[in-house]
């Protein structure tokens, strides 16, 4: 076998090991905390395939994660960290839903307009975080988080102040007109066209990133800013465009949840879509097509936990614990290097992460973080 093939094999095995360890740990927690572990474990692992409702919801849960995961991956590819996807989901939901709640005319043609509005809103705030980096050197790692956190509060503000339905007991808008609801593809589950859109966008993102000059420039900027600049690539511009695309995808995920699932604006609408998008992107190894199985895995975890929560004495929160364990292990170089050595003596470099901006640990120079601005010290 060639070295390249062994590299890939080691990467695949470390991915499988990561997911396996997290699932086993989750199973152990269920086994320890459930009064009827056999039943709970069966519900968790097999539940999603048990009937049309649960399977449809598995696919549906994956749909917004396809979009946020793709968005975060695009940002990573240019060397940016978009930790504001959570807030961008809300920005998109608010922009799109406001249009649909107060439509100038009622026609299904407003749906694509709402999607564009949602994408623009998400793009604006991701771009802002990127611009604060390229213009002032304020790291987008923290900037995007702070903007996102403020957006979540602003979403709640607009919802309560201007859009709230006074007859409801909790902050929620009036439902959207039936015209603006996305059709269900697999009733009674919530599966809708957003899933197909997510798959199509993943394929489009693959072609753009890996088959066009524009995508090549984005990836080169992510791999080495210096090299890209000396090659004549406008690194700042590509950085900002990739951030904007990242935010647009998150925003579209937000309006998709409104039109396809909730049918209205509610607080807590996103429920961690942005953060889970980060892990989906990492499980996908930042590859647009890898986002598809990664999002499906997360959809599976979520619907498994939901079934277990409904039919046994386990909290659906178990999914969040398993996800955080995957999160912990997903970039571990040591696992990859160890597996690569076992597979055969060769240089064990590259490994998981690719264009991921690195922190300072184990590096001769501080990189990527806010301290990068302090190279004069």
């Amino acid at each position, binding site marked *: 076998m060639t070295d390249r093939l062994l590299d890939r094999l080691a990467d695949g095995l470390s991915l499988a090991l990561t997911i396996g360890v997290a699932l086993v740990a989750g199973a152990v927690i269920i086994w320890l905390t459930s009064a009827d572990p056999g039943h709970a474990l069966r519900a968790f692992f097999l539940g999603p395939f048990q009937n049309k409702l649960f399977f449809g919801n598995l696919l549906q849960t994956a749909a917004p994660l396809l979009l946020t995961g793709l968005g975060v991956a695009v940002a990573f590819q240019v060397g940016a960290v978009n930790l504001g996807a959570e807030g961008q989901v809300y920005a998109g939901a608010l922009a799109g839903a406001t249009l649909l709640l107060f439509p100038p005319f009622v026609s299904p043609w407003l749906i694509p307009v709402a999607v564009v509005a949602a994408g623009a809103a998400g793009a604006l705030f991701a771009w802002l975080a990127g611009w604060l980096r390229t213009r002032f050197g304020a790291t987008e790692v923290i900037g995007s988080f702070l903007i996102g956190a*403020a957006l979540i509060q602003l979403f709640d503000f607009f919802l309560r102040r201007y859009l709230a339905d006074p007859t409801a007991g909790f902050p929620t808008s009036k439902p959207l007109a039936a015209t603006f609801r996305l059709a269900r593809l697999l009733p009674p589950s919530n599966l809708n066209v957003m899933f197909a859109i997510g798959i199509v966008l993943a394929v489009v993102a693959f072609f753009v990133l890996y088959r066009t000059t524009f995508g090549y420039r984005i990836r080169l900027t992510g791999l080495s800013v210096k090299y890209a600049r000396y090659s004549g690539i406008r690194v700042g511009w590509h950085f900002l465009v990739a951030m904007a695309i990242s935010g647009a995808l998150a925003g579209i995920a937000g309006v998709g949840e409104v039109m396809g699932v909730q049918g209205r604006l509610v607080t807590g609408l996103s429920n961690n879509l942005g953060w889970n998008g980060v892990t989906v992107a990492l499980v996908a190894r930042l590859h647009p097509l890898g986002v598809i199985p990664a999002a499906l895995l997360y959809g599976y975890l979520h619907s498994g936990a939901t079934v277990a929560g409904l039919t046994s004495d386990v909290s659906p929160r178990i999914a969040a614990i398993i996800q955080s364990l995957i999160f912990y292990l997903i970039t571990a170089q040591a696992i990859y290097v160890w597996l690569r050595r076992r597979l055969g003596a060769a240089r064990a470099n590259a490994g998981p992460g690719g264009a991921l901006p690195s922190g300072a640990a*184990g590096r001769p120079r501080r990189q990527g973080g806010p301290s990068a601005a302090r190279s004069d010290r």
Partner: protein
Amino acid sequence: MSSLAEVFNLQLLFDVLRMTTPILLLALGGMITDRAGVLNIALEGLLVFGAFAAVVGTGMTGNLLVGVVAALVGSGLLSLAFAWFALYLRGNIFIVGLATNAFAAAVTTYASWLISGREGSLSYPQAPTIGPISVPLVKDAHFLSFLSGHTVIDYTAWALVLVVSFVVFRTRMGLRLRAVGQEPLAARAVGLSVRRIRYLAVLASGLLAGLAGAQLSLTLGGFVQNMSAGRGWIGLVASIVGSGTAFGSAAASLLFGATEGVANSLQITAPKVPAQLLFALPYVITLAALVFYSATRSRKKGVLDT
């Protein structure tokens, strides 16, 4: 009338100090790890874990000291896990930090559900809360009275500013810490264990974040999901804006504490201002401070260069 305004102002100053404490402790932790060359995104999770452990420890025993120790042990262990995943398994430090935040949020929610049957909130009705200490002389000294009546953790936090500053800049340990952060290869060449010193730095930040968590939950008398309200990130920014010194971090923490203090008092004095806008305020001010700090640093290279 003037006395009323005075009382309000003193109350505001009192609140500012109170809100500063957790941010200050986190900023000191962030500063120590930053000096060791580790960007500590995990502060938020360490804070949440400490706050939860403090409530469980105090609730189970009825003893505040046990709660504080539980917070220190809990956050300390979680910080060691963070360091282990990043330094031993060589995970990406940002990602492992985010994982720590996600893990702390998930585990505390799950554990509170196991203990009380309610997701994301936990309180023991019989458990004591940390009470105020009134400082003699100061409490009667009219306009200095806002300095009295804080908890033991509040006063400890300010004492720790001096301790951390002394240790980092005036001791051999501190010199090694800074060497590891600035020139890890040189530090290794003279025989320092870069990894061991980074472990210790992360542990120190974990203990400080645990204390911050204890302050949050033991004054409130319970744990609520999202009670951290982004303070880990705000503390991290305070350590950056404080340009890597303890006193700078303290000054930045006071600014962010003041933001939260003002937002809090506006909720009472100006009930017409929507609460959500006040919740968003600390993030906006923190972002503004970060941008201002970054913009004023002179840089020759392009900002995307690392």
